[in-house]
Structures are given as structure tokens and as C-alpha cells.
């Protein structure tokens, strides 16, 4: 894999799969990264309205610029599941389940598909490790630029989801850790229950602005506060 770590002139004609380190090298020159909701200036809103967040029914945060990797493979292949666990330190979740550790989470998406989320600067390293560990028929796709995570928390977060998705988000049907890919307003989202009153939605980049508009509207009656993203470790590459 070392051939793709350094910039190259020619294509490696023998490579089975073109694995690519997609982030700029740190330190070369400042390169600005913009998350899908960059234009909404959420951090500025968060600073401006920090005082209101205690009384808000819903607190929203874009968990931006994370590393998103799609893993495809056969869940019935025990070796596949073990290898994923070895690299991530997380069990490969079954149907509608997710698992998380401090710096990584994995969501079941469909019978042969999972979404791994890691800090933004680790996507390439994790992909490389997974590729080394896995064998047989599988695929890993870096989709970090194509989606973002919006978290919703607070006493009214569930009410907002009820206005937005036909899926049953009641306690009895949606325990902590459950994940579904479902309709969200007129687009779709991967919705995870992260805690008692906290939820996460993975949305497509091109639909992120629509989701943000929808959420502002849906949250208005409950009071909406925006929180800064505290877990963004790729800020070193950012200038704005």
C-alpha cells in the first residue's frame, strides 16, 4: 500500500483496488475543508446563542469532517466479522444495531453493508488496516466527503423526529443503539439513537442544506440551540 501514500506519477497497473489517501498532507500549506453545512455557519450561531441552549427543546450539532467508510461484506462469514472487530475493537453489529467506542462507531446499514465513522484524519489508516485484515469478497469505500452527521438532543428531539420520519421512534421500538435508514422529510437519513435523549442522523452532502432547513423549521416550536462540534479532530487542516 505504500505506493499510494506518496504522490505518484503513474498508476499501479497491478493494484486490485485503488486505495487513496484523500486528505492533504498536514503542514504543507493551509488547506480549507468545508463540511456540508459549512455555509450555515453553525459554529458562529452556537457562540452567539450559547446562553439559550439550556432552555432549548432541541440542541443540534453537526459532527463534521469525520471519516466515513462503507464496508461491504458477508455478515455470515465469521472471519469477516472477526477481522472487522480486530481492527475497530467493535463487534460487527447485527440487523438495525450499532456499536461505538471512544473514537469509532459502526452502524448496520443493510444485510451486507455497514458504516464506520472514525476521526477525519484516520479514514485512510483505518481503511488500510481493514484491507490488510480482510480477505475474500469485500469492499471498502471512503465516503467522507459525501455525508455528514447531524446530532439532535434534548427533551423534544424525539418530537422533531416524529414530525420528520414515518419510522416509529418510540422508546419501545427504538432503544438506544438502534439504527435505521429511513425516510426523513423528503430525503433519507441513517438515524441512530445515541442516548436517552440524543439521536444522530447521517445525511447526504447534497441534501444537508435541505435537512438543516427542515430541522430549523421543525424545531422552532420547541426552541432550537446549536452546539459547536467538539469532536472535530481535523481542525488542524482548517482555516475557516
Amino acid at each position, binding site marked *: 500500500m505504500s505506493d499510494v501514500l506518496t504522490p505518484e506519477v503513474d498508476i499501479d*497497473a497491478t493494484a486490485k483496488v485503488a486505495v487513496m489517501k484523500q486528505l492533504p498532507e498536514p503542514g504543507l500549506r493551509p488547506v480549507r475543508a468545508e463540511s456540508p453545512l459549512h455555509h450555515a455557519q453553525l459554529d458562529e450561531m452556537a457562540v452567539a446563542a450559547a446562553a439559550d441552549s439550556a432552555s432549548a427543546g432541541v440542541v443540534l450539532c453537526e459532527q463534521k469532517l469525520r471519516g466515513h467508510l462503507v464496508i461491504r461484506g458477508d455478515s455470515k462469514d465469521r472471519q469477516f466479522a472477526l477481522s472487522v472487530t480486530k481492527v475497530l475493537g467493535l463487534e460487527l453489529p447485527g440487523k438495525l444495531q450499532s456499536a461505538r467506542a471512544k473514537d469509532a462507531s459502526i452502524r448496520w446499514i443493510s444485510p451486507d453493508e455497514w458504516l464506520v465513522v472514525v476521526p477525519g484524519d484516520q479514514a485512510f489508516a483505518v481503511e488500510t488496516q481493514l484491507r490488510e485484515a480482510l480477505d475474500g469478497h469485500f469492499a471498502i469505500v471512503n465516503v467522507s466527503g459525501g455525508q455528514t452527521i447531524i446530532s439532535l438532543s434534548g427533551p423534544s428531539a424525539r418530537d422533531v423526529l416524529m*414530525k420528520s420520519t414515518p419510522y416509529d421512534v418510540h422508546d419501545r421500538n427504538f432503544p438506544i443503539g438502534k439504527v435505521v435508514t429511513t425516510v426523513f422529510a423528503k430525503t433519507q437519513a441513517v438515524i441512530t439513537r445515541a442516548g436517552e435523549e440524543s439521536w444522530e442522523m447521517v445525511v447526504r452532502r447534497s441534501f444537508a442544506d435541505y435537512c438543516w432547513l427542515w430541522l430549523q423549521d421543525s424545531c422552532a416550536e420547541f426552541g432550537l440551540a446549536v452546539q459547536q462540534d467538539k469532536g472535530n479532530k481535523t481542525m488542524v487542516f482548517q482555516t475557516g
Partner: protein
Amino acid sequence: MAQKNRLATGGRINRNRQLTFKFGDNVYSGFEGDTLASALLANGVNIVGRSFKYRRPRGIVAAGADEPNAILQMGASEATQTPNVRATQQELFSGLQCRPTNGWPNEQFDLMSYIGKVGGRMMPPGFYYKTFMYPASMWETYESYIRKAAGLGRSPTENDADSYDHVNRHADVLVVGAGPAGLAAALAAGRAGARVILADEQSELGGSLLHSDDTINGEPATDWLASVIAELSALDNVLLLSRATVNGYHDHNFLTIHERRTDHLADRAETGKVRQRMHRVRAGWVVLATGAHERPLVYGNNDLPGCMLASAVSVYIKRYGVIPGQRLVLMTTNDFAYQTAIDWHRAGREVAALVDARRNPRGERVAQVEKMGIRVIRGSAVIDVLGGKRVAAAQVAAIDEQGERVVGAVEAIRCDTVASSGGWSPAIHLSCHTGSKPEWREDILGFVPGKTVQRQLLAGGITGSYGLQDCLEQGYQAGALAAQKAGFNAVKPASFSIPCVKEQSAMPLFHVPHTLPTSRAPKQFVDPQNDVTAAGIELATREGFESIEHVKRYTAMGFGTDQGKLGNINGMAIAAKSLKQSIPQTGTTIFRPNYTPVTFGAIAGRHCGELFEPKRFSAMHAWHVKHGALFEDVGQWKRPWYFPKPGESMQRAVNRECLATRESVGILDASTLGKIDIQGKDAREFIGRIYSNAWAKLAVGKCRYGLMCGEDGMVFDDGVTACLGENHFVMTTTTGGAAGVLEWLELYHQTEWPELEVFFNTVTDHWATLTISGPNSRNLLAELTDDIDLDREAFKYMDWRQGTVAGVPARVFRISFTGELSFEINVQANYGLYVWEKLFEQGEKYHLTPYGTETMHVLRAEKGFIIAGQDTDGSAHPCDLNMGWAVAAKKPFSFVGKRGMQREDCVRENRKQLVGLKTRQPEVVIPEGSQAVKDPDQPKPMEMLGHITSSYYSANLGRSIAMGYIKNGINRMGETVCYPQADGTVIEAEICSYIFFDPQGERQNV
């Protein structure tokens, strides 16, 4: 103005809060807790509107959703105008403004009523069909007058200022109707622990208990009601919804509830508040406890103000403390309605007579009424009423045992109110929505729900059980059973003890006879809202309308806001009798959603304005906006269309963008194109089976264009696919086709070739694609990369390379949709705008020009590159497009569409083929869609040769260019065809190759 009909005491109204409102131009007052109808009656307002067709004066008849006449136009401002508000369902608030829907110049004096008086017989059913048939060309003129004369209210001319939304809910048990049966059902299901929703259309839960004199387990019914609501409210698992009508019962136990949250408070919702909310409910089990509607009796002039339903009179007296008249004549076929005479008498006003159609009524209430000194006239009926704008007298006569003939003398009894009851019709509407066929029950003289395919139970009045004891017991059992079926434990049974009143059975009477034949008798209204009379129904059957559905449509019976709640059963019975068949033989029309009218706002919810449709944006969207781009919708994407400079027309902007690209370098945001990552050892094989051309030998580092065909051999998408690794490809699709192509690949993989080891993933949003095109594109790219060898031999046309651009890792594809030297730079979308801006920093010296989809279209058309979906319409195969080179007939495995394109019709002569077209006059641009003919002077219909699919002015060529289909066009190069235009002009054009520019393709290979 004094509320002259308001009783001194009683009713569930708050006499400490007086509310003023405006009806027409008059100001009245009522109390908190009133409906608009009860307040109008309290003020002695007799006429609330004019009838639909005959313009007869009309008053309030009912107390609920079945009201046919009090249909008002509400709203204090233009933006809040709401048509067709039932005054019986609208709660009173201070400042409410409304006016009658029909009536010009006003409801008291309507000019059109002379038609009703003078020409009533001249407006039979089918009047409009019969009268306005000829000449057919005049229909539109007639229609505008008919609409003015008819109509039910008007829509506002300004935007609705209120906000509406939707909420999705899930329940183990949804109970519809919060009368005694529904309350008991919710109680049982709630106690079992099920998630329960109890919804009721009224302002208060309770149904008939709100005006009941009964006792339950020894306490007044209203006390029992209060304790049950307290228990239900305390349960976390129970949601109580009032002012919430379950309007539709759809497949899979999906029901829609229309909740009115602020309509009872003000003309407009407070800022930030939602006026109405649609609850979209998925229910495990549904308990229908919708009750029943009372049937009025059909007699002469029964539409005069003062003619009311018996139960409605009781509701007004006991729930609202309003007595709608001075002297009552009550006509009934059953014991239940005797209660109305008792209520009227107790309110201190006179009951002139109680007319019972039965010869020998013996129920307990009969004795009770007679003990009060009320005159009971047996075996008789009110055959018609007299009066102008209000009932003045009832004409009572003895009738025979079958209720078919008048057999005695007519006695006029002075009165101002005639209340009637023909029994009860179960409210089976929601059950009908599910497709369940109603069944007639002779013992209750009503239709009840038939077999259902839904997870649905029934309780109370809807089953034909009207006794309070039965309702409570059935409700509790249904609620317990529903919870049990939904997986909850059984609950302890509950017992209800109600003092029993013995009732005698009712007499079937759907049409009160008159001394005159129906056709000559005073009008006997069956459906007052649509002015349908008994005579009209009989006429319809005589004219050959035998199916009840046809009778309905011919007479308009059951149309309008009440949807037949009041009159349908009487109408069916009259039709049945006229057709000499039974009611079950005649059957009933089927009720459809919605149960009562729903505002468009509630249907739309928040899916309006900015939120109507998602808008998809690329990572560079903000830059496009800042630089003045106008946008074009491509699917849900907003793509820059062109970038006009101040004062520049579209044509001039596009000309400038086209020239700049061919002369130096232009840049296009191509991020919206679909991109599918394909991995697996069989990826190459799979692609070869999906595309029509060959893929076996495409080397790593190379790209190839492919055509994707359906099974029929017709092209449906195209794009360039790059070989990233031996087992790794990235496929591009059209912007609009991205999702469809991914589904197509999955479909073939999952159903046809699951043995192939391959995975597909969308990476459309992941990569930002920045396309620089033009002779200076290599020089520009060289400014920003030092690790990709851009030498023409090292990085050839249709190669791709990996490196960094502006410090950002990138895959660069040397492919071209303009025919120029082009590089498509792909970077992770988070860096898209950064790299775009860096290109502009370096691009200044090359006059880097942003261009949009319009310029892209012109440049590709100059080169004859097709756009799937514009130059194809699902009826062209690759050879029709003169792209036979993209079909590899000798591939070892077949490919999708191979057999299709070998069908007889696909290989015949004279198929329409895609060619270029040059107009004789170079400045004339043929409108897209223009039809080609050989001889424009031939008689119509002319023989069409084909049509124009793409047509532009090309600044580079200094002339117009077009692509289009011509029959056998490839073999007709040089011939002239004509395009006749709608304005009579004809554009002549010469058939040519569709490659107008750089036919050797030298520019893209430099």
C-alpha cells in the same frame, strides 16, 4: 343583541365569557363553549344560507358533521378565508367573522330564489346536462355562469398566512370516537398498557355523554366521563386528541387524523403556533366507535328553517342551553326521539304535538310524555309544513300502517319548529374507506360495516347498538381485545350498570306520503345540501338510472360537505322502492376519504415554500451564487445554468462562455454527475454485461465511454467508466439518472447474476468534480500540480491519473464533453470549493471562465455528443444514434439489450435516426420539438419524418446547429427537410452529420 333563545341555566357553556361575532353584516354574541351554530340559534337566526340550486332559505338542521345547510364562508381577512365551514363544528371565538356561502345579494333576499319558486319544476335532476348540451363549443361559457350560480364558497386570493404540519404516530390501539364506547375502549386498552390514541372530532371528549341524563354505576354520566378522562390523562401510554377528526382509513391500518389546534381560538394562529396538524397514524389495531347519525324524515317543505333533527334539538338544549324555537311538533318512528319532547318540555316551552307514525307505541317514554300532558298523535305523520322563512304550522294526517298513503284528514298545527327522527344510521364511513362492503340490518333499519380485511374492531352505535349499557360494554371488550391482539395482557373486566328504559321497535319510514303524488307534492328534500328531492330520485329511476351509484351522480345526492351523512339512507330507500326492489338489493354508495373536508394546508403540512422539494447543492454552490449564476433544475440539483455579467442577455452570456472555452479555458461544476464505485473480482465482467460495448481489455488507468440499454435495446443512460484497479471501477452516469442506474445495477446483480462478486456504492456526493476545458486547461492545471506528468504522451486522452491539485489529493480524468483538451479534477467534496478557488487564482491569466449547463449543451452539441434523456427518449437504440461503434456484438457473455436491438422492428429500414441539421438561414434556430416534413404544402395530417431534440446558436460556428431524428436520416445526408412552425412559417434545414465542429477530434487529443 339579546340571545332570545338562550335558556337561563344549563349547558356546558361559560356564561361568564361573552363572545361577539359577526354573521354577514350583523354582530351577535354568544358564550365560550358555543359552536357557531348554537350561538346563531341562541340569537334566533333562522336563515343561515340559501340552497344550492333552488335558492330556498335554509336554517340549521343538525348539531354535527351531518349539517347540510349551515355551510359558511369564514375569515376576517382575505388571507384567512376558509370556505365550507360547518357552523355546527366551528367553535365560537371572539371576533369570528363569517357569512353565508350561497345567497346574492344576501341570504334574506336571494334573486335566484325566483327560479326555485317559479321554475322549480324546470330544474329537474340532470338539468345542467340536459340544458347546456348544445352547442358543445359553448360549454365553457355556460360553465362560468353555472359555477357562479352554484359553488360552495370561495378560496382566498391571498396566500394562507397560517402554518400546518404533519406528525407521524404509531399506536397499538387507535380508538376512533370518544363517546361512551370509545372511552370505554380506550380505558381497557390503556389499562392493559398498550399505546393508545383516542381521537374525537369534537371540542370535548364524551360524545353523547355530554348531553346525557343517564347515570352510570349510580353517578351522573358527566361525572363518570370526568373520572374516565382523568384516568386516561394520567396514563403515559394514552394520547387523547380532541378537535381531531379521523378522516381517512387507508391500507395497512394507516389512518389520517386532522387536528384543528387553533381554529377555536382566533381567525389566525398565534405566531409560531400550528393552525392544523395532520397525524399520520400506523395502528396495530383500530377500534371504530364512531357512533351513528340520526335520519331525518322526508316530508313536504322539510327544508324550511325550523325543521330539525330531533337529537340535534336535544343537543342544543342540554349541551348549549339553547332552545331553537317556541312551539315544537315532534315527528318520530321510534321511542328514542321522545326524549326531545321531554327536553323541550322541561326547558319550559310548549310541545304542540308528538306525532308518532306507529299505530300503537307502547314504550316507557310514551307514558312519560303523556304524563307530562303532551299530546301524542298516533299512526300519523307531518306530511308537509307551511311557512315562508320559518315554519308556521305542521300539516298532520293519519297514514296507513305501511307508511305509504295518507288515510285521514289533514290537521294544521301551529308551531315554529318541527323536529323529526326516522331512526339512526351507523357512521360506517371509515369502515367503507377500507373497502368493506356495508350490510343492511332489517332489525335496526341501517347499514352496518361488513367483513373487514383490516385489523379492526367495532363498538357501540356503529354496530347498531344504541343503548348506553351496550355501548360501554362493547367498547370495553373491544379495547381489551384490541390490546390483547396487539400483544398485551388481558385486563380485568369492568361492569357498567345503567338504568334501563324499555323501548319498542321502530317503524321503517323513509319517505312520508302526501295527499298528492310525489311529483306534485311540495318538495320533499332528501339531501338539502344538493337540493335533491324524493321526486328527483324517482325521476332518475324512471329515466333509467338503476344503479345507486348512477342515481347518486345523476341527482348529486350525497355530494358536498356532508357526503350523504344526512340523506343517503333515505335516498337509497326511495330509489329501492321506486325500482321495486329491497334496500339490500339496491345497496349503498361507498363512502370515501375524507370523512369531513380537510384544508389543503393540512394536507401539505410543512412541504411547502422552501421545503416543498429538496434542493441539492454541490460543494461549490456558494461560489456560483456569489458570482451571479442563474440556476437550472436537473433532477433535484440546482446546477449553474449560465453566469451572466451585469446587463448581459442569456444568449450573449452563453456565446461568451462558449468562445472563452474554445479559445482559452472554461470551468464547469460537474459534481452532480452520478458516480458509482464498483469493487469486486467480477466488476469488469459485470460492467461488460451492463454496457453494450467491450470492457474486457480496458487497462488500469484508462477510461471508456459506454451506452447503457434496457432489455428492449433502447439507450437509457450513458457515461464514462474508469478502471481504477483490476477489481475497481468508477462509473459516471447522467445527473438525473444516478439513482436509477444504481438501482439498475443492483437489480441485475441481485436477481440475475448474484454469483458475480461485486459491490456498488454511490460516491456522487463524495467527490467534487471540477472540469476545466479548453486549449489552456493543461497550462492551468500545471500551475497547481507538480506530481502529475501532464505531457500529452504521458497523460493521454481517456487516461486518468492520481496526484495532488492545489495540495489536495485528486484523481484527474482526461475526458472531454466539449471536444476540447479537458481535465476533470475529482477531490473529496470537503475540499471542492478550496480547489475551485485556487483554480481561479491561477486562472486569471488564462481568462478562466465559469460556464453552466447551457454552454455545456452548446459545446457538446457542436461535437455531436448526445445527452441521454434529451436526445434519447427510450425509443432509440445505439445504431439509431449512429453509435453502432459502441455495440460489441461478439462479447462472450451477452449484454443487456443485445437481443432487444436485434428484434425485427429494430433492424428494419426507415427507422428514425439521429442526424445533424443545418438551417438554410444560419441565424435561425429551430425550436426544439419541431416536427420535420418533406413537403410543408402537403395536406394535413402531414407525414412526420422526425423531430428536433437539441437546437442552439453556436457562437463558435457563427450559425445555428441542431440534432434531431429523421426517418432513414443517416442515408439522407444533404437532403432538405422542412419544419413548419405554429405561426405558419417554415424553417428549411439540410440533413448533415451531427458532428459540426472538429470532426477529426484533434482538439481533445492535443
